[in-house]
């Protein structure tokens, strides 16, 4: 049936038994500029002015406007969901925020997300994806791990 073929043609669901620990799964780059910060603020409801107001950021001792940590986590989460081929398959996802990302005006900074196989659980039908998330060569998220159900 054509509908079925359409699903198959997306062809993006990884197969658990194909995965080996340590294998690189995907690399994604996201550009973060002030526009993205404002969009994330509106979408998430997090209107802390340190994410859009240079004067406020300086007053609280920051070098400038910084990205929401949850935006960075969200970008890396999107990379996992896109790879999984099913956003609802991401069952667990956790990070530690190690360093704020300063966002220039004008311009943009790049966030690089690399996903590798951390562990495969054939019994649970799931894979742990270990993420390396950097900006300008510095790690911005640590212990970034997602558990994806592929069963």
């Amino acid at each position, binding site marked *: 049936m054509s509908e079925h073929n359409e699903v198959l043609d997306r062809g993006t669901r990884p197969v658990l038994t194909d995965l080996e620990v340590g294998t690189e799964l995907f690399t994604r780059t*996201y550009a973060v500029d002030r526009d993205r910060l404002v969009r994330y603020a509106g979408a*998430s409801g997090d209107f802390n002015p340190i994410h859009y107001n240079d004067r406020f950021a300086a007053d*609280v001792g920051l070098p400038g406007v910084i990205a929401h940590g949850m*935006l960075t986590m969200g970008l890396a989460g999107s990379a996992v969901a896109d790879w999984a081929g*099913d956003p609802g398959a991401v069952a667990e996802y956790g990070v530690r925020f190690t360093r704020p990302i300063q966002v220039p005006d004008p311009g943009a900074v790049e966030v690089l997300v690399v996903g590798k196989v951390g562990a495969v659980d054939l019994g649970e039908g799931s894979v742990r994806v270990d993420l390396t998330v950097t900006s300008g060569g510095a790690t911005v998220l640590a212990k970034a791990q997602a558990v994806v159900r592929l069963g």
Partner: protein
Amino acid sequence: MTESSTRPTGVDKTLVGRLYAPTETYEVSRVKIAEMAAATGATHPAHTDPDAAWALGYSDVVAPPTFAVVLAQRAEQAYVAAPESGIDFSRVVHAEERFVHHRPIVAGDRLRTTVHVDKIVERGGITLVTTRAEIADDADAPVSTVTSTLAVRGPEK
């Protein structure tokens, strides 16, 4: 306020174990899911196209993996922004975040969030405050558990 309940950052450690009951029912909309997907660079069609979501077996468009933070952060305000917490939000940075999804969030869900104050510890002049937001649907079935740790700095001398 007793001296033993406060520390240099002002965070009240006696609130560990406190529970903040839901104050609202949050109805998840297609529009909000699409906004969060766009803001976080998510490109999967199941976020925006009901047909693509149905093809994967969902009743409506599916939320991105960190969508639950919208509900969690709203609910956490009941504790974090309350004067009793002793948290000065201008001295807060986000230290950790973790999601456990018991099932995916989809458009049309009617969700209620209960916030628990799980842990308050001090480490070198910084107070780490861990909250846990338990999100449930209107049948009281668990949907997501969102654990968040804030680092609160002490005031400058």
